[in-house]
Each structure stands twice: as structure tokens, then as C-alpha cells.
């Protein structure tokens, strides 16, 4: 199957699976930070590297990135991106600090942000794996806090995914109704994996 040959129906089904997975994930995050977490309905599409950058911000924008590899029947990469200020606010919430306390990420803050990645991914994966019966394993999270372009290109190069367009399932997370925290979720995978997901769901 060629990269661009997923049908509209397949993309829809993929979005629906992701919606259920991410719905489960944001519920876990809401419990963790004791706040309502809003989520946009995920979208599945093929995007180039430049398009992914444009979706999140500029090349030189400060972002916190947590990335986890998926292994097993559904190999891929999950990443969460928060802009700098959102990352600081998230750490305040996670560590129970007054808003505005955090203005740099130390080791403690870094592991708090990584934990968000763990919790979200864990719930996402368990929802999809229960639905499909497929075996899904997550690797330990990686973390970076720097320029968006540098972070994303390094990750995609290491994953061998910078060739052309990548299949991206993405949504925005709003763990705070005031809109002070904004995050992006991406699942990068390949069409062969989608076929497997589809047949597990009886398509």
C-alpha cells in the first residue's frame, strides 16, 4: 500500500479509534491534575515535516516534547508537544504549586512532564488494545525541551520517518479551561499498521 492510498473510510475509522483512545487518555490526565481536560476530535492525515511544524508553531519556538515508541503489533511513535509556557503551567498543576511558580524545567519538572506522557499513552494504548485485541507495548519516554524545529527533526530522523509525508493522527489538548495550557498529541505510524488495525476491528 502506498502512503497516500488510505481511503476516506479508513481515515475515518482511524480517527474514531484514536478518539476513543485519546478520550480514555484525557480522562486519566484529568484525574492526575484534578482538572477538566478538553480535547479536540483527533484528525488523521498525511503531513510533511513542514506542515507538522506549522501546526504547532515556528521552528524556533520553545517546546517541551515527550516521545514514546510503540512496539508490538502497532509500531509507531507517540509524541506530546507543549509550548514552553504551557509546560510550566502543567508542572505547576502536577506539583501542586501556585500558578506562575515554574519558570524553568529542572529534573523534577522534567519527570513530571514525562509522567503526563506516560499516563496519557498508557490509557490510549490500553483502550485501543482492548478494542482490537492487538498487542501494544510502550517504550520508556524520551524528553526534550528546546526549539521545535530541532526537537522534531531530530526525532523524525532518528525514527527514519522524515522521508516524505508521514501519517499523523493529531489533536490538541486543553487541560485548563482558561486556555492557558495547550498541547499537541501526535501518533506517527505507517499504512501497513493501519491495515492491521482495520482487520482487527473487522473492516
Amino acid at each position, binding site marked *: 500500500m502506498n502512503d497516500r492510498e488510505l481511503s476516506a473510510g479508513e481515515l475515518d475509522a482511524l480517527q474514531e479509534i484514536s478518539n476513543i483512545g485519546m478520550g480514555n487518555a484525557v480522562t486519566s490526565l484529568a484525574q492526575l491534575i484534578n482538572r477538566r481536560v478538553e480535547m479536540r476530535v483527533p484528525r488523521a492525515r498525511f503531513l510533511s515535516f513542514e506542515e507538522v511544524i506549522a501546526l504547532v508553531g515556528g521552528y524556533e519556538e520553545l517546546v517541551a516534547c515527550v*516521545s514514546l515508541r510503540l512496539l508490538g503489533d502497532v509500531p509507531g511513535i507517540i509524541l506530546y508537544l507543549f509550548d514552553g509556557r504551557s509546560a510550566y503551567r502543567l508542572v505547576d498543576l502536577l506539583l501542586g504549586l501556585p500558578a506562575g511558580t515554574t519558570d524553568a524545567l529542572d529534573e523534577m519538572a522534567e519527570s513530571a512532564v514525562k509522567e503526563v506522557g506516560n499516563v496519557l499513552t498508557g490509557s490510549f494504548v490500553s483502550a485501543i488494545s482492548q478494542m482490537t485485541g492487538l498487542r501494544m507495548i510502550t517504550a520508556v519516554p524520551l524528553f526534550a525541551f528546546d*526549539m521545535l524545529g530541532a526537537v522534531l527533526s531530530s526525532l523524525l530522523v532518528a525514527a527514519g520517518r522524515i522521508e516524505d509525508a508521514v501519517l499523523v493522527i493529531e489533536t490538541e489538548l486543553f487541560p485548563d479551561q482558561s486556555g492557558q495550557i495547550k498541547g499537541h498529541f501526535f501518533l506517527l505510524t505507517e499504512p501497513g499498521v493501519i491495515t492491521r488495525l482495520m482487520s482487527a476491528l473487522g473492516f
Partner: protein
Amino acid sequence: MELQVGIADYKITRDPGRLITLGLGSCVGVSLYDPLTKIGGLLHVMLPDSTQFNNVNRPAKFADLGIPLLVQELQKKGAGGRRLQAKLVGGAQMFSGLDDSLVLNIGQRNVEKARAVLKELGIKILAEEVGGNRGRTMILDTADGKVIVRMLGNVQKVI
């Protein structure tokens, strides 16, 4: 005038022009500059070695193909091979964590390959700002061949 160089791409310009490439992480920016003609080129490579891949559609993606290509194109525009001076920026390790398969230190391999290729071509490296764990933006000024390296937190270096 400032021209932007994308990932896995290169551009050439002459005084009074500047070339910029944004957000180098593990990628390496290679600038080549001829001080006599004031012609300069900037290349943004992602990977060290094209021989590991079957399907090579963009030579500028790889250090082993991209650097000789840039030299060739510079010569076509009248920049002298023997006068070319190189500067290297990038090759960082952006991620921390224990997942080895994503921490292959591509940055370091990119830098080492770029040095080796330049040496083979007999091009001297005048300055480097490589390694570490910071993302970098690289700007080549063809007025004098200076390279400005910009990092987050208002950090700027001229090499």
C-alpha cells in the same frame, strides 16, 4: 536579502546576501565560503551516510553526497575550490532518556562524517559549534563569511 535553507536542502548566494537554516538539532549545517568572490553556500544535512539507503532521492540529505554537491555547485558559480572555508554547526543530542534505538547519536555521526568528507576534499574547517544538547539556528553572512549561531534564551555566538 536572507534566503532560507530547508531541511535536506542547500542554497548558494553572494555578497550582500545571507543564508539561514532554522532549528538544527541532530542535523548539521555546513557553510562553505570563498572570501575572494564572496560567494557562500549553506547545506542542511540530516544523515551521515547515503550508502546505507537503497533509495536516495535527495543528495542534500546526506553528508557524503551533499557536501561534494555543494562544492560542485559553488565552483559552477565561480567560487574557488581551494579557497573554500567550511564551518560546521549542529549535531546535537536533543533527547534525554533510556530508549537507545531513538538515541543513536546521529548528531555526532553527522559531525564526524562532515569532517571526514571535508578533509577528503581538502577543505579547511575554520570553526565549529557542534554537539551538546541545544537546538541551533545558523546564519551565513557572505559579506565576510561569518556564521551567527542562535540558540534559545537570547544566546548568540559568532564563529
